[in-house]
């Protein structure tokens, strides 16, 4: 298997639906090795899969053994999982380790999945934020620091080790079958909280389209930082309505009140530190990615919301 002539790619976050979609698209042309921080996932007989902590020394053995050509780093513990400390270790320190090893073992191509959350949900955000805008998420909440730090780190390596050819992707809300992030959980639920009087414009990308975008950015080697979002928009509350959710308004002012309510009720689906994203729009400009990579989404918003609506009907 090691002597296989296909180029080899290490894909992190293998337990997630997105990584599995990416692997499915790449497996014919590449030898894939899958790893995940959280659990071991069986993918198929020809894809070695490991549960591994990037900060442990055994992680380096994988690099020695497989001589990877590229890395697709999708393994991010999202803000709604785990404690802040564990997230920091996994996302920031783990990524640093991954990038150091990538450099040490002469890897020529690295994709890092970030998120639009890094821009921060601020009342004064202009729309169509482009990649040069400052990352303001950290000023709003400590809980998003790992996302911003992960980006900073990837940025440093992008300039420090040019031969890694790092591409950082900042997608809008990734949703669709199998996705388990906050937004997908909200669209899946029968009753979804909203902040009364606030319905920010949002962007959604279907998981299949996102997987296409990742594969495209791996194959067309153009390092840099790119937002990934379709040129289509909808307000949060309308997205819920179209997904067949009943909206449950929470009092929105003063701002401490909804924070208090979500905390007391233990509303994990509506995490405190993401509340501002349900209040103020963070609309990103995905045109640079679309033009550079010739990318266009294939699944329109209506199809995305139909999926969630029909899922509820079958429950």
């Amino acid at each position, binding site marked *: 298997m090691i002597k296989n002539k296909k180029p080899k790619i290490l894909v992190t976050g293998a337990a997630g639906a997105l990584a599995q979609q990416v692997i499915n698209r790449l497996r014919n042309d590449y030898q894939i090795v899958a790893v995940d921080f959280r659990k071991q996932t069986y993918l198929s007989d020809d894809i070695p899969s490991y549960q591994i902590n990037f900060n442990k020394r055994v992680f380096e053995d994988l690099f020695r053994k497989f001589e990877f050509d590229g890395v697709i780093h999708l393994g991010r513990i999202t803000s709604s999982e785990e404690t802040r400390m564990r997230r920091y270790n996994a996302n920031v320190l783990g990524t640093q380790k991954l990038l150091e090893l990538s450099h040490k073992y002469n890897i020529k191509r690295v994709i890092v999945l970030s998120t639009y959350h890094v821009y921060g949900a601020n009342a004064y955000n202009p729309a169509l934020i482009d990649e040069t805008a400052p990352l303001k998420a950290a000023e709003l909440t400590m809980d998003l620091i790992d996302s911003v730090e992960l980006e900073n780190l990837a940025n440093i390596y992008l300039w420090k080790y040019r031969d890694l050819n790092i591409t950082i992707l900042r997608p809008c809300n990734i949703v669709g079958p199998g996705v388990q992030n906050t937004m997908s959980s909200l669209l899946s639920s029968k009753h979804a909280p909203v902040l009364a*009087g606030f319905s920010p414009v949002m962007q959604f990308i279907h998981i299949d389209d996102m997987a296409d975008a990742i594969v495209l950015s791996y194959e067309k080697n153009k390092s840099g930082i790119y937002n990934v979002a379709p040129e289509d928009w909808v307000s949060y509350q309308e997205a819920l309505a*179209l997904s067949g959710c009943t909206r449950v308004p929470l009092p929105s002012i003063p701002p401490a009140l909804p924070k208090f309510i979500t905390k007391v009720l233990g509303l994990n689906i509506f995490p405190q530190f993401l509340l501002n994203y349900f209040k103020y729009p963070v609309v990103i400009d995905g045109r640079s990615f679309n033009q550079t990579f010739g990318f266009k989404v294939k699944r329109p918003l209506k199809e995305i919301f139909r999926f969630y609506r029909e899922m509820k009907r079958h429950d």
Partner: protein
Amino acid sequence: MSLKSYLKEKIVSKEFDAQLKKIQKPVGSLGYDPWGFNAETHKIVLSLYSGIYNKYFRVKTDGIENVPAKGPVLIIGNHSGQLPIDGTLVGYALAARKNEPRMARAMIERFFPTIPFLGNFLNQTGAVLGDPVNCAKMLENHEAVIVFPEGIRGSGKLYKDRYQLKRFGNGFMHLAMKYDATIIPLGIVGCEETIPAIANIKPLAKILGIPYVPIALPVIFPAKVRLNFGKPMKFEGGDVREEEVTRRVEQVKSVINDLIDKGLSERKRLF
């Protein structure tokens, strides 16, 4: 049927719907644009607003055909009247223009997005947070944008200072030059009389975190409003010194002053 489509059916007349359909507006598959504009809400609100525009303020326009039908446009006017009524009237006037109607975007104060319901409502009707990045991106998308360079200095003006232009910022001129936008100067007469204020309670405004708290009667007077649109103005871009930019801004300002004077001299009575 959703509430929105029900309202649309009840409120928006067929003629008006046809008129608004003529407006070319790039929106996504669900009728939204990146700034939160929503085509359906816009139709309903404009229909409701026609009474206010035609019957309450009895708006009279002059030179509205000067606003180009296509391409990036900055409509630069004098701001007044405590509430941004002037912006809404200009927006309505252009959308209801018989030939080549156009959707113009008003730039709004930074505190609006923090107000529940109102902020969203304004966005859905086409208003946009007054941020230079927003304005630049809209001009890049070939939109028409309404800008009041006096900002809150203009809207918070007291009655005794009516029709005296406050300082203009230079931002709009830089954007016009960069994006090769046509400037349409606009003199608005009448809005100063809608909410005449005699004083501003500054300490209270500070506590509330809003730009001003006027002492005024809690009514909006039905002053007759005149919108005088001037001839298009174009300014070459390139490496221009700030001094020259200020001179160009003054040039626009003086045209607006003339348009206001014209409006005031045409006016027979306030209401």
